[in-house]
């Protein structure tokens, strides 16, 4: 309802590039966070940021003109993609946190710098 009303009164005017640039910045910040954060949970948080940036990107594209991919109108593809991405992100977050908790129980640390068993 709100979207319809919005669309009738105010047609979309924010350019695609703005959305894309925004998602790129968000992605970059998330990437920085993954590389710079010592805390494993913090790394996961950053990863969530990156995923969200991608979601925004896809959603932005779903709003703009895209070629039809068969029966499904172009605009749907992006949104579907986002739905699945959210699903994956959820799964990944759950499992990742479970792993971090298990490691914490074993090693008493969540700092990725100290978890260097794979070294060598």
């Amino acid at each position, binding site marked *: 309802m709100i979207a319809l009303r919005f669309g009738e009164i105010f047609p979309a005017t924010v350019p695609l590039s703005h959305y894309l640039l925004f998602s790129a910045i968000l*992605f*970059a910040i998330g990437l920085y966070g993954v590389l710079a954060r010592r805390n494993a949970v913090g790394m996961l948080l950053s990863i969530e940021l990156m995923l969200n940036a991608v979601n925004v990107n896809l959603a932005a594209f779903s709003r703009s003109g895209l070629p039809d991919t068969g029966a499904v109108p172009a605009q749907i593809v992006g949104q579907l993609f986002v739905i699945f991405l*959210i699903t994956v992100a959820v799964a990944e977050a759950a499992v990742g946190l479970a792993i971090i908790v298990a490691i914490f129980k074993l090693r008493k640390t969540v700092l990725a710098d100290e978890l260097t068993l794979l070294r060598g």
Partner: protein
Amino acid sequence: MRSCVVETLVFYGLAVPIVMLALVVVTTPHILRAVVALFLALVGVAGLFFLLRCPMLGALQLMVYAGGIAVLFAFAVMMVRRITGEFVRQTTRMTWPAALVACAIPLLFLALWQGQLAVLDETAELPDPIALSAATRFVATEAPAEIDPKEDLSPAMLREYVIPFEIASVLMLVAMVGAVLIGMPARPRTRPGTGAATEPESPGGDCVEVR
């Protein structure tokens, strides 16, 4: 097209805080503050979804991401907090390389369109002479017609996209089971014949100490 000030305002009013919150997420030493910032950022992204006329995505985002994952993170943070009080360095030593790499992403994006972002906006098409494969070429169309997301999304999921849908559900199941298994506490195992409890095995397989 008429320019819409409100939308622009709303967009920037959402985008800027999101970015600032994201910066908080990646820089603050307090993990809990990072979690909260993330939560708020996710809410903001949901708003963006609504702005992009994907209400379902927005709703999903709020319910699953903000309401589910952020809370999950909060729980996890609580569980793994080291209550020692000493100040531990929260960043790795590769902040500068990380920053460089991070900066490369938007720069790459900008370089791709060589400043001709207007072309992208108008035609959603890449300017010449950058040649990409035809699959990624965007064809300019009319302004998209209004859609009813509820009507088109769900049938699509159950018809054309049923396989990814099912796989996604399996994935959820697996993730759930896996998370449970990983997080399960160690339980004693009885040896057949002896009745005595053996050494409890730790979950997560055999982590061999090499130190």
